[in-house]
């Protein structure tokens, strides 16, 4: 299928994905954050959603698990509509998902072990604690943090927190993992560790992944498919090569990290730096 055809298909919401968004619009008050977005997330593939800050990436990913309900449109998980069901019914559906939040969202009052067994405690009857310990050990080994079982989130670095959060996200062996800016705030080495982990999970567990990021290095490394959001709409959809060669100027400005004329116009409107010298002359350190 040609890339152009694929974009048209996705826009029409005709994909046979594990998660399908159809004509999703989300408004907060008068502000439209997602504008008639349709998307089919393919099973076993890694889909990366890119876009500038504030374009609606996090809102989009939260719709995939119905942490936010759309103002209009439909959300399907395995052909079952899930945006109009009760929270109690959703809780069962959500056990098929793992979600890595931007800041990790580890529970401060619980140790690493307690954080990882949290979903198990909620959904499984734990009878054999030795097995649970082994499971925690194996999940932590997958993210390279075996031995940190008794640490608390406050004692971990930012990268370690994200890895523990990832271990928690895979505790119930989910079919889909949603990553909200997994490499934000990490140094390049730690970012690459997270990228390798995403690839490892993809390889070993054949998990469907959706990653929201504005880190293009990470996007190119892990993506089977990249989608670009701009002002609440999907403006580009395809593999890494398709995105690299996309004709849309906004896509090119974003992936190359260059400001466009609009951004520069805003800077010019605010005057020169010398005009902004508002501090009194005697204000010196």
């Amino acid at each position, binding site marked *: 299928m040609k890339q152009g055809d694929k974009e048209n298909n996705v826009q029409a919401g005709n994909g046979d994905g594990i998660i399908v968004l159809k004509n999703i619009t989300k408004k907060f008050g008068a502000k439209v954050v997602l504008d008639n977005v349709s998307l089919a997330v393919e099973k076993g593939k890694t889909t990366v959603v890119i876009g500038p800050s504030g374009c609606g990436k996090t809102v989009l990913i939260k719709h995939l698990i119905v942490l936010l309900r759309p103002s209009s449109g439909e959300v399907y998980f395995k052909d079952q509509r899930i945006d109009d069901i009760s929270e109690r019914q959703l809780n069962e559906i959500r056990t098929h998902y793992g979600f890595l939040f931007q800041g990790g969202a580890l529970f401060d009052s619980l140790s690493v072990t307690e954080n990882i067994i949290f979903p198990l405690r*909620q959904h499984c009857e734990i009878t054999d604690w030795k097995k649970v310990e082994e499971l925690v050990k194996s999940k932590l080994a997958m993210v390279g943090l075996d031995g940190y079982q008794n640490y608390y989130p406050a004692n971990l670095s930012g990268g370690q927190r994200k890895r523990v959060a990832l271990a*928690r996200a895979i505790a119930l062996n989910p079919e889909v993992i949603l990553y909200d800016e997994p490499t934000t705030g990490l140094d390049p080495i730690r970012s690459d560790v997270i990228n390798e982990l995403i690839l490892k999970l993809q390889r070993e567990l054949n998990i469907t992944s959706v990653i929201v990021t504005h880190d293009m290095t990470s996007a190119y490394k892990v993506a089977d498919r990249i989608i670009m959001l701009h002002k609440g709409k999907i403006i580009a959809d395809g593999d890494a090569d398709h995105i690299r060669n996309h004709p849309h100027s906004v896509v090119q400005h974003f992936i190359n990290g260059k400001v466009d004329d609009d951004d520069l116009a805003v800077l010019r409107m605010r005057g020169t730096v010398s005009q902004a010298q508002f501090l009194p002359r005697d204000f010196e350190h």
Partner: protein
Amino acid sequence: MIIGTVGAKTIGGVSNMGRFARFAWQSMVASFRNCLSPCTYPLIWTQMNIIGVRSVPVVMITGAFVGMTLAVQAYDQLAGMGLEEHLGVLINISVVKELGPVLAAVMLAGRIGGALTAELGTMNVTEQIDAIRSMGTDPIRYLAAPRVLACLLLTPFLIIYADLMGIIGGYFVSVVQLGINSRAYWSFSASGVELWDVAIGIIKGLFFGVAIAVISCYKGFTCKEGAHGVGQACTEAFVASFISILALDFALAVIFKSIYNTFWSLKSLI
């Protein structure tokens, strides 16, 4: 312009009340379900320790000062009429029926309500509540219900502590400091304070406890982003709890008075 602003504020207020009512209902249902589910007992036990056990000293201090202050303030009034031996009735009925429950509840609203809102508000802004939902768990059942149950079950006990210390404080000032006859003090107290008076003070505690917990949890769950949002939610939680305590106290006073007039007088017939 003015009509539009007033209309928008009215709609906002009504929808906010609706959201709160829904949250309160869900919390009560979740609390009931938690009671039937032994696996949630450790969560309730932990909250009982934080909310109840650790509040005992501050509530006892509050109660003691209430009793002592009442004794000092009322002594001159009664002594002027030669009724100083009736001081016990005045102090003890005020403490067990009104001041003990209300001031203990206000103290709890400050100590527990602020802490609950700050804790849940921080969990909200750091996406921990979303994380709970994403793992297929109802955050109201996991976070709010144990706190509501702990407040519901332990506020009456804390009020008993406040009453006890109020009675002791009042006795200490009246008898030891002001020299009222101890036997007369207790005999007038016994004749003036009925079991009914003690009971309504304790029953009020159930309502105050639920109001404090539900308001504080709601404010935490709905707090806005950032440190300012959490701080504002804590302030709003305390103010709303305080007003609710006073409003509930008035409503319950009216209701209990009607009940007393209707049924308590029948006691003598039995």
